[in-house]
């Protein structure tokens, strides 16, 4: 990723100060800048503006300084957003493609209904991360959470990948979240550390990751470590647990006669 950015010509980097700007104005300005050929946009003084990057379908880089508002990158398809701060709720809502990197924590429902792209969170995520993510063919959304998550992680998850690295956990390295994978019927959740099985949804099975799982985990850990300057080898130490849906159609009979 570093090579990509350094290859971009400097004159295509544009700056914007979002201080006091309404979200509609900010997103309209962004769309104009993208239409004008901007490939890298740096936005300062972001404070609560919603939907930043929404529906942008170009492979540009957007650097945000401050605290972006809810639904950051909603529906976006292609941009690489980096947040130097925390994200609020709904980050990556129904994201289609691209990447969101959060140098901090994220709020609730991170990556909800995502259908592609990647979200990397340096620290923790709030409730219902990865709710209703889905995948089709090669389109497989990924949420990597450096720390841990709050309850209902992967709720109604229908596809995609969630990886928790537990770097913010202390002592026992047990993830302290309830109702993990409730209603899960697709995709996979990988945890570095442990979780009390009583805290998993009844649809969730537990296993050790197989060799294919470990290939995926290693590549995501490498990406996380590079993004946030962490020690890749250290992050791979300690066991990983795989959570998977025991049934692909858990409610198949509910509406059947």
């Amino acid at each position: 990723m570093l090579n990509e950015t350094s290859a971009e010509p400097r004159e295509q980097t544009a700056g914007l100060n979002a201080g006091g700007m309404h979200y509609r104005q900010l997103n309209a300005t962004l769309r104009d800048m993208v239409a004008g050929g901007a490939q890298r946009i740096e936005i300062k003084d972001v404070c609560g503006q919603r939907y930043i990057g929404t529906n942008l379908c170009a492979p540009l880089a957007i650097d945000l300084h401050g605290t972006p508002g809810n639904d950051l990158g909603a529906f976006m398809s292609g941009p690489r957003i980096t947040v130097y701060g925390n994200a609020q709720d709904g980050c990556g809502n129904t994201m289609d493609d691209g990447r969101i990197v959060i140098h901090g924590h994220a709020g609730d429902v991170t990556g909800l209904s995502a259908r592609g792209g990647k979200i990397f969170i340096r620290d923790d995520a709030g409730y219902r991360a990865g709710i209703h993510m889905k995948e089709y063919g090669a389109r497989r959304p990924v949420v990597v959470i450096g720390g841990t998550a709050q309850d209902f992680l992967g709720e109604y998850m229908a596809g995609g990948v969630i990886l928790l690295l537990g770097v913010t956990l202390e002592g026992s390295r047990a993830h302290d979240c309830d109702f993990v994978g409730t209603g899960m019927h697709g995709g996979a959740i990988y945890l570095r550390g442990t979780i009390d099985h009583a805290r998993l949804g009844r649809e969730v099975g537990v296993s050790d990751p197989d060799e294919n799982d470990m290939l995926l985990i290693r590549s995501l850990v490498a990406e996380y470590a590079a993004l946030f300057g962490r020690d890749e080898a250290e992050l791979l130490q300690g066991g990983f647990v795989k959570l998977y849906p025991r049934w692909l159609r858990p409610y198949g009979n509910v509406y059947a006669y």
Partner: protein
Amino acid sequence: MKDLGHVNNPWGDDKVIDACSIFGMMDVSGKTFSGRDIITAIGSMHDRGNGLGGGFAVYGLYPEYADLYAFHVMYLSVSGKTEIESYLNSRFRVVLSEEVPTRRVRAIENPPKVWRYFLEVDRRLCDDDVEEEKYVVDHVMEINASFSDGFVFSSGKNMAVFKGVGYPEDIGEFFCLDSYEGYLWTAHGRFPTNTPGWWGGAHPFNILDWTVVHNGEISSYGINRRYLEQYGYRCTMQTDTEVVAYAMDLLLRRHGLPVEMAARVLAAPLWSRLEHLPAPERELYTSLRQIYGSLLMNGPFTVIVAHQGEMIGLTDRIRLRPLTVGTSGTRLYLSSEESAIRLICPDLENAWIPAGGRPIVGRLGDALPARRSGRSSLSKGENFPLHAQVQGG
């Protein structure tokens, strides 16, 4: 009211994103500050509300009358004022009465007349503080249930509620809140869901010095209300949030529960979690559910409850509404969105998202709450005095 039928706009942005906004800030050292910053903070979440309600609670603003009940009354007619003033004069000693200063603000239409009264209760009528408070509560309930053209919306000592129909930043300007100083402020921007947007229905809701601002819906309103009516509370504000104010008054003031336990009544731990707890905790929470089952608040909520010396943030147990906590120096911030905190406190030291159903408490003179490593809705490490309280409750 916003015309929700007309959804097309030049921005191609059809989504109605309304959801109430709440904000609270407290200096636990007791240092007072004006309403300027909280107006800015709640105003930055303008898009969460729709202009049908905004309000503020302030603590520590009337130090010169700290021992008197500061009744704030809205009047819808001149006769309403005559009747209620006559009622107050016959039941209290009115030390001072004055119109609450307001500014003309274009966005605020047809405001009622707002007056405040500093009242003393004749101690020959009540033996102690408990009786005096009951006397005050009973008369607030009587006024609000009996008079059609006026109501008491703030009745505590050395605190006040200011609220009305409008966006919170306009209500703040209307009531000149930049000219008051308090050590604890809460604020609300309203998006009414099930009930009318009227001046009495704006948040905060209050009784004595308890106030509540709320984002969400109390779907258990009916059962909560019936239970509270048995204790003399009368719900007259046509809004679900009202029951939270009375429930806190009942649990914390009258029944003497600690805040942490009252939080377990409103946001009771799920039965499925109780099974996994050690026996003393399981028995305590089971007892609480048995005794106070009718005060369980169902539905999504985040509330900021305040009273003299204390500010409490609490969400429902599965956190269906947002809350971010911030701390800096001696300041505690609670907000629907982190960005609103950072707007008025750019050098914020800590920000975190608390677990559902767990109260975040700021107390005058105490250390600020710290982020806990346990994050579940029922953390194992939590401890508060279990045993003495069970009998007391």
